[in-house]
C-alpha cells in the first residue's frame, strides 16, 4: 500500500562514515526528488530525477550523490558524513516533472555524531 517508502527510518552514524538512504515509489511516477529538512523544518530541495535522468541539482556538497537505477527508485549516498548533515531527508515523487503534486515518503532521520 505504501506509495513512497524510504529505508532506513533512522540512521545514527559517526562523522566521516559513508551511508546510503533508499527510496522506492509504487505510484508509477516519472519524477523523484530528495529534500533535506533541517531542525527548523525548512525544506530544501537537493535533487530531482525524471525517468532516471538528473534534472535538478541544487547547490549541494558533492559528498551527496543520488543514483536512480530505474524510475521507481532513487537512492542517496553520502560520503564522509559531517555533523551538519544531521537532518531529516525526504524522498518525494510526482507523476511527471511538470506535475503539481508531490508525494512524500516518511523521511529518514540522519544523526551524525
Amino acid at each position, binding site marked *: 500500500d505504501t506509495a513512497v517508502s524510504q529505508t532506513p527510518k533512522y540512521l545514527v552514524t559517526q562523522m566521516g562514515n559513508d551511508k546510503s538512504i533508499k527510496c522506492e515509489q509504487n505510484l508509477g511516477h516519472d519524477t523523484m526528488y530528495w529534500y533535506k529538512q533541517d531542525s527548523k523544518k525548512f525544506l530544501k530541495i537537493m535533487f530531482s530525477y525524471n525517468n532516471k535522468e538528473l*534534472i*535538478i541539482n541544487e547547490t549541494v556538497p558533492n559528498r551527496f550523490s543520488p543514483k536512480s537505477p530505474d524510475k521507481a527508485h532513487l537512492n542517496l549516498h553520502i560520503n564522509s558524513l559531517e555533523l551538519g548533515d544531521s537532518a531529516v531527508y525526504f524522498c518525494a515523487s510526482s507523476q511527471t516533472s511538470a506535475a503539481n*503534486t508531490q508525494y512524500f515518503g516518511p523521511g529518514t532521520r540522519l544523526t551524525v555524531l
Partner: protein
Amino acid sequence: QQQVKQSPQSLIVQKGGISIINCAYENTAFDYFPWYQQFPGKGPALLIAIRPDVSEKKEGRFTISFNKSAKQFSLHIMDSQPGDSATYFCAVLKMDSNYQLIWGAGTKLIIKP
C-alpha cells in the same frame, strides 16, 4: 534569495477558532499555489491548492484566499481542531523547464483543546 515569505513562524489557536497563515511571493510568473500539511514524524502532504484565476478555494474547513495584485495568499482553517496541529507549508510553482516547487519556511500550528 527568499522568494516565498511565510508567516507567522508559529501559531497557537483555541479549539473552534480560526487559524490564518499567510504567504507572500515575489515573482509573478508563479501559477500554482499549494499548501502542504506535515504531522510530526511524517512527510508533508498536499492539503489544498489554488491557481491564480480564482480568488478563493474552499475544501471543507480549509480555505485558500488569493490576492494576485498583492502577491499574497493565505490558508484559513475554520473551526480549528486539535487534530489540525501540524506544520503547514505554503509553496509556489516556478514555471520553467524544471517545474520546481519553492517552499515557504513553515508555520507550526498548535490547536489548544
